[in-house]
């Protein structure tokens, strides 16, 4: 088994004292970030990314992946104790988590959430390990034409499956792509879109600046506006008896668990879907298959288990296309991808050949991060109960300071700090007007790849546009993209023919 050999090498990296310490730090920080209402994995990764220069890249990605993992666990904590989802991915957990807490079973709900997350995470990491290398092998055959088609496919999934307003989704994709062209032209090296002749624009707009602006400053502004009164924290006690009872209860739900894990993993791979829809779907299906569906929404353990399994599985799933194809499956993985580029690594299939230590170190660290997250989660529950009582203004002020300093540190230009404030306010307004933010960030990260692969193909093929369709793989991707793109149109026509009274374009 070649695979096990690679994995064993990976564990040699991820079990080094430094990396073990980093995983522990990462999941603890992630748990706190995820537990704070308003902050999720994407905000945590955006804010912490500039601080990762302190460690080598292989440890930095382990830290960020651990934060990602921890935040997925942490989201459930505020869903249960506050009734406010700690992150959008934990929305479905409030449906039954909150009623359980109100019935005095907060401890049991937290145990169920943590154990379900662990199972979802573990199953999906195993799937990840099995699929990563074969997928990377397939991706090795990709030329620029396939790369372009794949990026196009990623964007059209937002149009076809994203569920947001379609015009506004297209708007954000194009805005992100247009912003990615700021700076020097890839082929001719001439400057373009240098606004107001500011020299800062010559080096382009870093994805980090946009991410810190939108997910740091913008998110906090949004939370300041929407959170008026301090929410009530439900007390939670944890006993070993409850822990044992919780584990026994969860054992009976193997159907929900296995379905949630596997479905979550595959849904997570799609750029437009990800952890939030995966969790909602898993919840819906668990309710559908349950013998007592009337208990759902009133404090059923299964209603906590189903979404938590799926959202953790989805977060691992979204790492797969990022690592093997270089196409992120979620905004958080888009930031991880951007980070890797910043550290001088090129994500994609070649990474498996050129940097096996890095890849397998990361994969094996997902196993340790998963285990660390469940242990830290259960051990620190009293601390989370205390931390959730922390006044929101303290958290906000710290996030603001970290955003300003973290935005300055990588480039050491005040220009970027101004851009962060601008993107923060702009992103906040756009978000209020229901413009989706995920396609914007993904487009900025993938923009250079899209333009480069498009133009490389055309130069190689002497301007023959048909090259994209003639190659079998790229042709297939483009065909699927066209289907995704036409999907909402078909719905429109159907609605128009049927004279449906309600608008269908959202």
């Amino acid at each position, binding site marked *: 088994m070649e695979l096990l050999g690679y994995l064993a090498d990976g564990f040699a990296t991820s079990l080094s004292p430094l990396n073990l310490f980093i995983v522990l730090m990462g999941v603890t920080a992630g748990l706190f970030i995820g537990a704070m209402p308003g902050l999720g994995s994407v905000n945590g990764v955006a804010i912490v990314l500039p601080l990762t220069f302190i460690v080598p890249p292989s440890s930095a990605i382990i830290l960020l992946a651990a934060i990602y993992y921890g935040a997925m666990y942490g989201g459930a904590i505020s869903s249960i104790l506050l009734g406010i989802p700690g992150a959008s991915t934990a929305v479905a957990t409030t449906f039954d988590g909150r009623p359980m807490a109100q019935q005095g079973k907060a401890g049991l709900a937290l145990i169920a959430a943590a154990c379900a997350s662990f199972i979802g995470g573990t199953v999906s990491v195993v799937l990840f390990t099995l699929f990563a290398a074969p997928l990377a092998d397939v991706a090795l055959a990709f030329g620029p034409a396939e790369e372009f088609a794949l990026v196009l496919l990623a964007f059209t999934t937002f149009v076809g499956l994203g569920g947001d307003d379609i015009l506004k989704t297209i708007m954000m994709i194009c805005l992100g792509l*247009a912003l990615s062209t700021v700076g020097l032209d890839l082929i001719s090296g001439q400057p373009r879109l240098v606004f107001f002749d500011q020299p800062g624009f010559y080096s382009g707009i870093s994805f980090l600046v946009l991410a810190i602006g939108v997910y740091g400053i913008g998110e906090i502004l949004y939370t300041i506006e929407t959170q008026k009164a301090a929410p009530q924290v439900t007390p939670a006690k944890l006993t070993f008896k409850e822990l044992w009872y919780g584990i026994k209860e969860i054992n009976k739900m193997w159907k929900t668990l296995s379905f949630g894990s596997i479905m979550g993993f595959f849904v997570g791979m799609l750029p437009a879907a990800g952890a939030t829809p995966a969790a909602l779907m898993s919840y819906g299906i668990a309710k559908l298959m349950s013998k007592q569906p009337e208990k759902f929404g009133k404090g059923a353990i299964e209603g906590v288990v189903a979404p938590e399994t799926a959202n953790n599985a989805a977060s691992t799933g979204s790492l797969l296309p990022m690592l093997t194809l270089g196409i992120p499956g979620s905004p958080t993985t888009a930031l991880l991808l951007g980070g890797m580029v910043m550290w001088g690594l090129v994500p994609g299939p070649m990474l498996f050949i050129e940097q096996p230590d890095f890849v397998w170190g990361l994969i094996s660290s997902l196993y340790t991060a998963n285990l660390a997250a469940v242990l830290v989660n259960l051990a620190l529950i009293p601390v989370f109960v205390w931390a959730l009582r922390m006044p929101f203004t303290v958290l906000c002020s710290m996030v603001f300071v970290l955003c300003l300093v973290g935005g300055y540190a990588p480039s050491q230009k005040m220009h970027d700090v101004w851009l962060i404030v601008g993107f923060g306010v702009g992103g906040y307004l756009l978000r209020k007007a229901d413009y989706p933010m995920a396609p914007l960030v993904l487009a900025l990260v993938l923009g250079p790849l899209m333009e480069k692969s498009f133009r490389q193909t055309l130069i190689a093929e002497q301007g023959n546009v048909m090259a994209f369709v003639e190659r079998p793989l790229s042709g297939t991707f483009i065909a699927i993209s066209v289907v995704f793109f036409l999907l909402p149109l078909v719905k429109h026509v159907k609605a128009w023919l049927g004279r449906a009274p309600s608008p269908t374009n959202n």
Partner: protein
Amino acid sequence: MLLADRLIALGLMALSAYFMWHATVLPIGWNGMTGGPGGGAFPFWLSAIMFVVAGAILVRSYRGQIEYDPTFFDPETLRSVVLVVVVLVITVALIPIVGAYIALPLFLLWYLKVFGKHGWTLTLILTVCTPVFLFFFFEVTLKILLPKGMTEPFFIPLYARFF
């Protein structure tokens, strides 16, 4: 919400027009020599799509097919958001002049004491500890110098001590 949606769509149309104007500096058409679009083509045509899409959003808002919330901003909390944005802008403007180690503590002092109405103990602990942490994390460990402005001379003895 309706008015805001229209204003934002108009703003995005203006922005995309500005992008298009900028992109025309480089060739935006098909370049027969190299085979493929010129350097300005990508930003130009993307901005053109943005312009059309924003226009469609604007037109749609007049056809009344979508129901809008009556309000865009929450009137109770809008004041706080505007206040925070103004103070953030002032803080960033102050950083190059008086340095990050004066501007950021001032921001924290305002945010915690005035905006958050916290006690002096908490405010002072955070206002003092944050810059100390920033100094040791960024300057000592990462060797990234934060802007100091006019406070630069005060840091020379510290540099001598830690570098």
